[in-house]
């Protein structure tokens, strides 16, 4: 297609040049013979000259038609500039040429008819070039935002106009009474077409002023051509008078009328264009606001946009925006107002009880409070950004004229704020759901880690029974327990709780178990273990995290156990000899709270206790004692103690079930807020065979 066009263009250009040259030769020969043969034309073939004429016009017009088709886009100023720079200047050239000729004639003081013909012929070429260029550029603009009717109307116009070339071809005089009414009708048709100037509405204020200059220059070109050719038509010596060509007249009528119409419409729409510009900018801003969710912009960026757009939309002279964080306003986006002025206005508003509400005052001067402040502003708009339950910001706009916030402006501003509210709300929802998704995934992994880390079975031995229970809450993960057989008669048992949740808790839990297995290989006392563990954790735990833990080393041969507590829940104990249930209330600081080894050492206590057969030890995490009833009461240490009092005579498994059932009764079904871990250890009587 492109190739075809290029070929066609080359062909048309060649035929245009050849026909023009032939026309020139014809004219010169004719003029020569006119001069020689006393007014009787020697080689007069009007048909030939008309044919060449038509061929030239058709070639140039078709060439421009193809050429203009390739122009795309809505750069209207670009079109106008194209028209002026490539064709409009032709008129000025033709004037220059004619003037040079006149000066030469005056200087030489002879009528030089042949030269006049050359000038006339060149000007004719320029005229056709100008008309064709203008004609098709105007077509491009006229058909902007076209509908089917307009397209058909234009196609007919082009066809009818082309038909008028037939008049020239057959040498009819278009001014005869037969054709005159038809031409008049064409004139009306042109007037109708010239009302299609939609593109002018899309010009901004600046572009309109530039287009006025260009259109003016093009109008002047039209005038120059018309004047030149009508002046020349009086010249007796002309061989061909181009004012006789009806096609050119109509084309000029169209080009001139359309240019004039565009000029006038641009001129008169100039005062209103800033309004339309504002409207379309408002629309764009609305769109940008709603798009910001998809583009993943932050709240701060949305507020930037809001403030910028509202200031432009209302033409405010001063403004500031309060972001509400933790119910405290923070001033951002300050425009032309200082801190003390903001403060005084805020005080006054508070005094009037106008606080974070939609408020418009178009006459601040009438208010005695504002008059006293002697501020330069006369109208104010307060626009809160809030949903039914959440206030996220308040926008303050000030103008230095009275009645600055008219109904229309306020409507636009309110649309902005409601759109912002929606955007902010949606942004929050999106980030929340993303967060939730990530959270769920994390917790799933954490739960898996927790489950895989806690031992499923304890060693069964003849000298003690142990029963374990562990349930992970949906939201919190971090309980752990483990054991290590130190020697044939000694076992180390650890229980603990890592603060925090999700991946990081699971990670620290695994770390803690590593520390347990690593350090206990060296068989150290529980207090020493806590010190070393604290030192190790200090290097890797984040500042807000800590771990509570208790470590027990039970020595069957010695019939006793040693333990140390690092911030973990107190150990519940039943002493069978004294038939008493109590807590070992020892001191001990959680791990990772003090990161100074020496200072930590002062906070850890070790205890040794001789056990009796039948004694029961209950160790657990805070998920048990802090379990809550639907009425928000805590299960508590006392109730746990009471349960052991009731059940100590049972086997370890049964004691555990009794306690867990009681806790579940207390909380109600599906009400586990925190991980619950419970270990029940019951010491058996000494076996005779060991």
């Amino acid at each position: 297609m492109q190739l075809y066009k290029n070929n066609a263009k080359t062909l048309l250009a060649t035929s245009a040049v050849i026909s023009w040259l032939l026309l020139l030769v014809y004219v010169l020969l004719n003029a020569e013979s006119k001069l020689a043969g006393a007014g009787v034309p020697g080689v007069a073939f009007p048909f030939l000259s008309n044919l060449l004429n038509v061929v030239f016009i058709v070639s140039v017009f078709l060439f421009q038609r193809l050429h203009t088709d390739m122009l795309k886009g809505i750069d209207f100023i670009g079109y106008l500039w194209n028209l002026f720079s490539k064709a409009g200047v032709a008129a000025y050239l033709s004037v220059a040429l004619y003037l040079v000729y006149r000066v030469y004639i005056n200087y030489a003081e002879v009528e030089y008819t042949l030269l006049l013909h050359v000038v006339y012929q060149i000007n004719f070429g320029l005229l056709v070039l100008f008309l064709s260029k203008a004609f098709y550029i105007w077509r491009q603009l006229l058909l902007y935002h076209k509908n089917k009717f307009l397209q058909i109307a234009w196609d007919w116009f082009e066809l009818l106009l082309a038909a008028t070339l037939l008049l020239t071809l057959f040498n009819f005089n278009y001014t005869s009474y037969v054709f005159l009414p038809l031409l008049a009708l064409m004139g009306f048709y042109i007037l109708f077409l010239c009302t299609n100037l939609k593109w002018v509405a899309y010009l901004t204020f600046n572009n309109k002023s530039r287009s006025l200059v260009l259109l003016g220059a093009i109008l002047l070109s039209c005038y120059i051509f018309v004047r030149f050719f009508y002046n020349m038509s009086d010249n007796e010596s002309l061989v061909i008078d181009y004012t006789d060509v009806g096609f050119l007249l109509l084309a000029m009528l169209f080009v001139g009328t359309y240019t004039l119409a565009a000029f006038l419409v641009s001129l008169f729409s100039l005062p209103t264009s800033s309004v339309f510009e504002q409207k379309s900018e408002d629309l764009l801003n609305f769109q940008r606001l709603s798009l910001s969710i998809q583009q993943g912009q932050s709240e701060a960026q949305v507020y930037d946009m809001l403030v910028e757009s509202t200031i432009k939309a209302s033409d405010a002279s001063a403004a500031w925006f309060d972001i509400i964080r933790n119910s405290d306003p923070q001033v951002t986006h300050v425009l032309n107002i200082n801190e003390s002025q903001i403060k005084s206005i805020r005080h006054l508003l508070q005094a009037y009880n106008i606080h974070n509400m939609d408020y418009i005052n178009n006459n601040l001067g009438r208010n005695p409070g504002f008059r006293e402040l002697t501020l330069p502003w006369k109208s104010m708009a307060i626009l809160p950004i809030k949903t039914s339950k959440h206030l996220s910001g308040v926008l303050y706009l000030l103008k230095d004229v009275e009645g600055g916030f008219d109904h229309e402006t306020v409507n636009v501003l309110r649309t902005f704020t409601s759109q912002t509210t929606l955007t902010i709300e949606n942004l929050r929802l999106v980030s929340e759901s993303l967060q939730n998704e990530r959270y769920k995934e994390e917790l799933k992994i954490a739960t898996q880690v927790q489950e895989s880390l806690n031992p499923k079975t304890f060693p069964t031995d003849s000298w003690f029974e142990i029963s374990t229970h562990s349930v992970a809450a949906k939201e919190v993960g971090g309980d752990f327990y483990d054991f290590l057989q130190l020697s044939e008669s000694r076992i180390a048992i650890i229980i603990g709780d890592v603060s925090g949740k999700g991946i990081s808790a699971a990670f620290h839990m695994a770390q803690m178990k590593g520390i347990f297995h690593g350090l206990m290989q060296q068989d150290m006392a529980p207090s020493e273990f806590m010190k070393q563990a604290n030192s190790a954790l200090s290097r890797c735990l984040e500042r807000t995290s800590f771990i509570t833990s208790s470590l027990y080393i039970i020595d069957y041969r010695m019939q006793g156990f040693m333990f140390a507590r690092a911030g973990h829940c107190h150990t519940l104990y039943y002493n069978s000899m004294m038939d008493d249930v109590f807590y070992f209330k020892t001191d001990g600081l959680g791990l990772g709270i003090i990161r100074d080894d020496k200072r930590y050492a002062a906070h850890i206590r070790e205890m040794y206790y001789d056990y009796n057969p039948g004694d029961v030890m209950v160790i657990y995490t805070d998920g048990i004692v802090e379990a809550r009833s639907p009425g928000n009461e805590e299960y508590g240490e006392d109730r746990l103690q009471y349960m052991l009092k009731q059940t100590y005579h049972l086997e370890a498994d049964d004691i555990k079930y009794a306690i867990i059932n009681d806790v579940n009764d207390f909380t109600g079904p599906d009400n586990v807020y925190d991980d619950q871990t419970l270990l029940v250890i019951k010491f058996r009587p000494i076996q005779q065979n060991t």
Partner: protein
Amino acid sequence: MKITQEIKENTVIMTLDGELDASSSVILDEELSDPEIMKYAKVLVNCQDLNYISSAGLGVFISHLQRFEDAQIKLIFYNMQDKVRNVFEILGLDLLMTIVSDYEEARTIANE
């Protein structure tokens, strides 16, 4: 969770109201991280309406403890409910932090 701040001379009185759990501890952390606070020599925390504190909430206090100590800012808790105090005690924090019974006592200790 609601946190309110009141400033009296060189003392910040922070009142905690509600449950300090993982989500509300973020707000507490923001409040305590505020550089403004470092301008005052004493921070009194009124725990009268603090009904519950989770490990995340404790973590926030723990993380700021050292910073306050370094800046020689006194951090004093008062009016603490028994069950909340129990949590502090079990963890061993009562030996690191100053927890007193009422406002008067807090003022006296702060002015020492």
